[in-house]
């Protein structure tokens, strides 16, 4: 199988468009050959998950592209980094790690990437449209773009996302192609009059992620979500427990008007019935903490809190008025934060313990003041990764229960 290149691809490969474009195209061609793609296609945007420092190789790669005069050819957003550049001093890190980690964020900007530093680029003005071909990294962003928007990306990340951005091309393979987007496995939710609670969407996400592995899941019986944030939470959970890059929810997501459309007229390979007990079981595994356990912090906004989520949280804070000084960290994009600040929406909120975090996330870097006690979250993804990443004990709950718990100083959950 040979990879077909256009004259423009070849000109890039031959160095006629600069050293960095040649390097990026060379790597993209090697990658396309490794996966058996037949050709490349144009992309309209990219999202780069390269700003978290994992070692020297990652920085060497970006520096090489900067030295070669590299510039991204399509609008390119950046995922979270290791620092909150808006709130200096929030992240504590030894200097030997801090220098390369800061340089990694800055080097990406020198390539022409946008300083978004968010895991939710779909909340920014760079949100793609239905049917657009894009090359995105970051698992929650990938599943959101494919499923909720109907844009098309594979699970990119680590080097290849940047090569796509520098060349404006991606391999014509996988979820870029219509036939690969058809559903493979059917999840039938058997719930009587389900309330569209946040935790229901998280629970369904955890279950489909675990059982689908890398097959495209189709869900029936899901209640209409209150907003796209509930689908964000479902996708993030599914991409946490499995490699889900695309899900279809019949009657809800854009490529699944009907069951038949979701499966492109074919039959599912497998059908799984999901009961309320299955969902409760999946959620209970996110918190091994009994009600009444002392609380040291709350962390919300994984993936990054949207403006709509802030509009639900802020009245809740005023109403419950937690006054014990328990920090309520809320991870959010800097564009969302700026908008709130311009509106004056955050004025006086520090008194309730609110600590907005931008550009990064509380589970990838050292932000939390206290790692003892229990941290409550409404995020399935945070609950899954935080114990391993930063060594905290987690209790998962609805957002309202997180805030009520902060007010009384220990874990309370209305459902239990």
């Amino acid at each position, binding site marked *: 199988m040979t990879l077909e290149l256009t004259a423009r691809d070849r000109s890039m490969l031959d160095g006629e468009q600069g050293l960095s474009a040649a*390097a990026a195209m*060379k*790597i993209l061609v*090697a*990658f396309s050959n*490794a*996966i*058996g793609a037949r050709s490349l296609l144009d992309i309209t945007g990219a999202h780069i*998950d390269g700003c978290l420092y*994992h*070692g*020297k*190789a*990652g920085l*060497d*790669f970006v520096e*090489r592209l900067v030295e070669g005069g590299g510039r991204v050819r399509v609008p390119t957003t950046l995922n979270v980094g290791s620092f909150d550049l808006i709130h200096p001093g929030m992240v504590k890190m030894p200097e030997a790690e801090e220098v390369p980690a800061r340089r990694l964020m800055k080097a990406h900007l020198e390539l022409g990437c946008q300083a978004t530093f968010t895991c939710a680029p779909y909340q920014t003005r760079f949100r793609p449209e239905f049917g657009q071909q894009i090359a995105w*990294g970051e*698992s929650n962003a990938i599943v959101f773009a494919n499923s909720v928007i109907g844009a098309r990306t594979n*699970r*990119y*990340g*680590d*080097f*290849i996302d940047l090569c796509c951005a520098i060349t404006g091309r991606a391999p014509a393979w996988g979820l870029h192609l219509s036939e690969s987007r058809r559903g493979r496995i059917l999840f039938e939710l058997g719930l009587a009059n389900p309330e569209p609670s946040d935790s229901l969407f998280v629970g369904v996400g955890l279950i489909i992620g675990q059982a689908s592995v890398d097959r495209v899941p189709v869900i029936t019986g899901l209640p209409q979500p209150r907003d796209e944030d509930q689908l964000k939470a479902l996708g993030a959970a599914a991409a946490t427990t499995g*490699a889900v890059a695309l899900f279809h929810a019949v009657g809800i997501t854009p490529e699944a008007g009907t069951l038949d459309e979701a499966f492109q007229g074919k039959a599912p390979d497998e059908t799984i019935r999901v009961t309320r007990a299955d969902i409760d079981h999946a959620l209970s595994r996110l918190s091994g903490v009994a009600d009444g356990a002392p609380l040291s912090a709350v962390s919300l906004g994984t993936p990054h809190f949207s403006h709509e989520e802030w509009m639900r949280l802020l009245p809740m804070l005023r109403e419950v008025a937690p006054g014990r000084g328990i920090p309520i960290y809320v991870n959010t994009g800097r564009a969302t934060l700026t908008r709130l600040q311009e509106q004056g929406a955050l004025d006086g909120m520090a008194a309730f313990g609110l600590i907005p975090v931008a550009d990064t996330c509380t589970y990838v870097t050292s932000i939390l003041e206290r790692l003892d006690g229990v941290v409550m979250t409404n995020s399935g993804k945070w609950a899954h990764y935080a114990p*391993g990443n930063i060594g905290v004990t987690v209790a998962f709950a609805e957002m309202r229960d997180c805030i009520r718990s902060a007010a009384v100083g220990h874990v309370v959950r209305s459902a239990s």
Partner: protein
Amino acid sequence: MIRPVETEVTERSGTFQLAGITEGQALVISQPLSFWGGIDVETGDITDHSHPGLGQNVAGKILVMPSGRGSSSSSSVLAEAIRRGTAPAGILLERPDPILAVGAIVAEFLYGISMPLVVCDIAGLPSGGRIAVGVGADGEAIVRFVGAATAGGAAV
């Protein structure tokens, strides 16, 4: 009388995800390993507590496993391990893996260090023998397995 150690050589062909020649001791693991969260990049030790290969070391070996697994951050970890010299000398997989391919391609680009990645039939390859990977006339991978047979083994 002690017999001289004889060897049994088997050869099979495969497809390169990243071409190159290499050689090393075979480390065969039955389950896919995620490099991110599964390998100590400073030593090459397998650190994934849920993996049967826990405690083994991949550095300089020909790692044989069914497939890759998990996060795309494994690309960075593999590239970093190649840079540090703690990566395998080559990897044989039953199913192609884009994430490991990216790590190997980028490390070769940055540091000029080749870590061939081959997709081939891995059935019956035991740990401990030596594996040599070469390039065939049509660009295919030629995998030669040299199993040191003991007196009680195939030499009998």
